[in-house]
């Protein structure tokens, strides 16, 4: 239910930077559905495990449109919305490198 991951690259800069650690969990899903602004880690078929910010959730709650904060971010604007099932967890703890 809890996973620790290391952030690579900088599409969520300046909030999350390369080398930061994040603790993610699915536990918050049971308490409250994902919403705009949440930072999630998910599995994308072409790119692997990614971390992005939820921009919006589809009306049925099954798909998420995720984006980065950097203008050159590779995200749902390129690969489309992601399925809720592909989400590995929501970031519950952010450990900054500096």
């Amino acid at each position, binding site marked *: 239910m809890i996973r620790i991951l290391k*952030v*690579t690259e900088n599409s969520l800069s300046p909030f999350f930077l390369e080398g930061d650690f994040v603790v993610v969990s699915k536990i918050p899903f049971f308490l409250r559905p994902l919403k705009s602004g949440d930072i999630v880690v998910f599995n994308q078929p072409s790119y692997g495990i990614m971390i992005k910010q939820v921009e919006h959730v589809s009306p049925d709650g099954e798909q998420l449109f995720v984006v980065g904060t950097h203008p050159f971010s590779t995200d749902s604007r390129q690969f489309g919305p992601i399925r809720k099932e592909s989400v590995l967890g929501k970031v519950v703890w952010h450990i900054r490198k500096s």
Partner: protein
Amino acid sequence: MIYQIFDWLDNKLDFDQAQAHCDIPCGIYDPITAQIAALTVVRMIDLMKDLETKSPNKDAAFLNTFSRYVAVKEEHAEKAKHDVRVIWGDYIKTQHLEQYPELHSLVHKIMQGGSKSRQTTDRDAAAAFVEDINKFAEIFWATKGIKTKRAKAPYAPNLELVYPELV
């Protein structure tokens, strides 16, 4: 202090990485560059065979011109492969593959066709290389909802190419 603990744990446990992937998505993709490169391969084979027929003396001048044709054939076969790989790797997404499941095998065939075009002077193989890239172009434009047409290239070797019907 907390970061140092996580860093130490990472060295021991090797945590998974979460990519905050960043790219520069210029969004400019067009298979015509690969099609023209493949067409150039056929043109070079034609020129090589023509030169061989018309040159009784295989002298330095002959070898110089012939080797230039070979070099251009090599370069353009590789360029065609490269340009197809870029579209396949950077533009084609999972939903395209679901819609056109033959894409992977077609791209693999193009890679092999490009290699054969470099290794040999087989004109039929080079023409097939052009045709396979035409099929790739048809799929590419279809993913964008753009209709295509076929027309003979307005330059030698005048093989048929796929063009988008743009308004």
